[in-house]
């Protein structure tokens, strides 16, 4: 969402600018926070204020008794920046815990954490395109959740790459609207996230 930021290495001076040589990576962070007014603004404000990227964001209350919400953020940056993001988040008063799910997955020998995204995809059209859209949706296991004689709305759930592929395929078949939830993610294995 934000412009990519050249992380301050090199000179640290506006008079001599040196580009960062570290490669940016994309990580998924899970943040457990008190569900109180303004907490999302605090988290987002931290990202914009310090020039961190947000590629995807989802939030919902996950524990009604404890009033805890879980925020899943997909962010990108160098490992140094990603480590800073985690530490800066942990410093906030309403934040209970932060996990870098991508890093955790790698440490445990997996490529990625479990990631899912849901999208609703509206495709309008008649004739051959309409039939083709339906057939492809079947192949992707994307059920129809709304339809008329002139459109279908599909629901698709899966990894980000699958959702994106589905949307790309629907493009020439009369894609008119897409709504995506953003990534939800948990670690693999039996351990849960501590608050």
């Amino acid at each position: 969402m934000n412009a990519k930021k050249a992380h301050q290495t090199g000179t640290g001076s506006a008079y001599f600018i040196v580009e960062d040589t570290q490669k940016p990576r994309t990580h998924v962070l899970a943040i457990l926070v008190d569900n109180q007014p303004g907490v999302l603004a605090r988290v987002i404000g931290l990202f914009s204020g310090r020039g961190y990227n947000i590629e995807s964001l989802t939030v919902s209350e996950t524990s009604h008794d404890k009033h805890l919400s879980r925020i899943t953020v997909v962010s990108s940056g160098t490992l140094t920046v990603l480590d800073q993001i985690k530490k800066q988040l942990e410093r906030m008063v309403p934040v209970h815990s932060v996990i870098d799910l991508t890093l955790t997955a790698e440490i445990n020998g997996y490529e990625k954490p479990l990631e899912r995204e849901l999208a609703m995809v509206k495709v309008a059209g008649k004739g051959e395109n309409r039939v083709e859209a339906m057939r492809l949706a079947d192949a992707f296991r994307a059920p129809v959740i709304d339809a008329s004689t002139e459109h279908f709305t599909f629901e698709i759930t899966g990894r980000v790459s699958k959702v994106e592929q589905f949307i790309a395929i629907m493009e020439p078949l009369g894609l008119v609207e897409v709504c995506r939830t953003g990534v939800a993610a948990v670690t693999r294995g039996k351990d849960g996230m501590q608050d």
Partner: protein
Amino acid sequence: MSKKREMTGAEMVVQALIDNGVDTIFGYPGGAVLPIYDEIFQQDKLRHILVRHEQGAGHAAEGYARSTGKVGCLLVTSGPGATNAVTPLQDALMDSVPILCITGQVPTPLIGSDAFQEADTVGITRPCTKHNWLVRTVEELPHILHEAFQVCLKGRPGPVLVDIPKDVQFATGTYIPPNEARPFRYSPRVSGDPEQIRVAVELMASAKKPLIYSGGGVVNSGPEASKLLRELVELTGFPITSTLTGLGCYPASGENWLGMLGMHGTYEANLAMHDCDVMVCIGARFDDRITGRIDAFSPGSKKIHIDIDPSSIGKNVRADVPIIGDVGNVLEDMVRLWRAHDEKPDPATLKKWWVEIDKWRGRRSLSYKPSKNVIMPQYAIERLYELTKNKNTYITTEVGQHQMWAAQFYGFEEPNRWMTSGGLGTMGYGLPAAFGVQIAHPDALVIDIAGDASVLMTIQEMSAAVQYNAPIKIFILNNQYMGMVRQWQQLLHGNRLSHSYTEALPDFVKLAEAYGGVGIRCEKPDELDDAINDMIEVDAPVIFDCRVANLANCFPMIPSGKAHNEMLLPDEATDEAVGSVIDEKGKQLV
């Protein structure tokens, strides 16, 4: 603890402040805080100090906090009251000063309606406070106030803000004292990992060219941390330098003292940073004014970094041995382990390092050309120091050349004696901060070393100083320029002095008199001592107009984006050298 539990929100505010040990609050009344002011009027445990501008209240609270180690409090109204307090809040955030700001807010039903004097205070101050709260009901008010004190002081200290709508101030509820408040989960780690501390001590013991680099975190940790720091230096025999905000933790008269480091630090401190093999960073944060060019920063050293804030570690510079914890706690362990450690650095090796350092010291990087006709600003600070060093003195500053000269030429022997705006660099900080210090220490000699441009930013607080008989001394190094801006323009912008000259300065002597204070002017070096002594003698706020050489530059200096070993020294800084300090490529990037 109060026996009366049923009270209004406004009463709760006063009660909670008292219960949390507050006896002084700086503030400025307005519509949205009238109920609280009404309560303040009807009691005598909490003293209110009226300032002339909310920014003044904030900096006064900072001065109060820095010089006492307690929370500094301010009370301001909604809208403009709150927005005026933003600068001191950010200042306190950058320098980790514990201040509590209470703001009034329009009544709850009017929030969001663009009501008179409404501002989204919590939204505006979110990034410039450690945490802030909008109080929605009177029931949660006492809890939030007690939590605010905890967040303010615990871990890395910082500013907090509690925004209280006027209807909540009027509403009646049950007051809960601090010890009965709802559980609150906020406990930053204070003790360092023993294993990491052990590794650090081993590394220090094996060092050939060690250096201690301490910072404001030592001041924040309390007087005990400074004692331990001195003990560690004594035990190890290591050289020590400090950041701007850490001055005084190790005495300037101490044998191992190298002077301040960084952009205007001494030659010996910066070269020692560059050449050391083990750096022990204690409560400092590798700020860009300290490191200079990051990729050329202390290339050959292993870095031990002690900090209470995990996000400070590895932010700008990679730490080889990170230790998360309170400086005082960690130093205690470190000193104990050092005493018990068998292997100590070889004295001969350490001696060699000191010989090298002494060679750099011999460069006398703080020297300047004295003058018989005009007062050199460096000379002014030197004399001020000589004439006030044996008194109970507190120094504050504004921001600019005078601030750096004060840091270079005034010797600080104790922590909490030096109040300056380091991180944010707030011009206008010094006068109200001095006022806050004087309120906390009525019998002390409190001096604001100021510049002619900075001091005008908050000069109105002279009026407050006069009202409370706070005999602060405002010592202006008057060169008619925004000296540091002019210096940068000379160094980096082809000496095009764009708007850095003040053509119409007030007559500072008459200005002092107009406020009901005392004005003193001095223009000759041989009259300076007498004039300073006169200033010290006066038992009233003084503005001292010290006319100094107009075009003096502050050296040594590491130009922006250069490394520690590329310093500009005073004797090399001819006009020609100064003009070519930044190459053409650098100039284009402005």
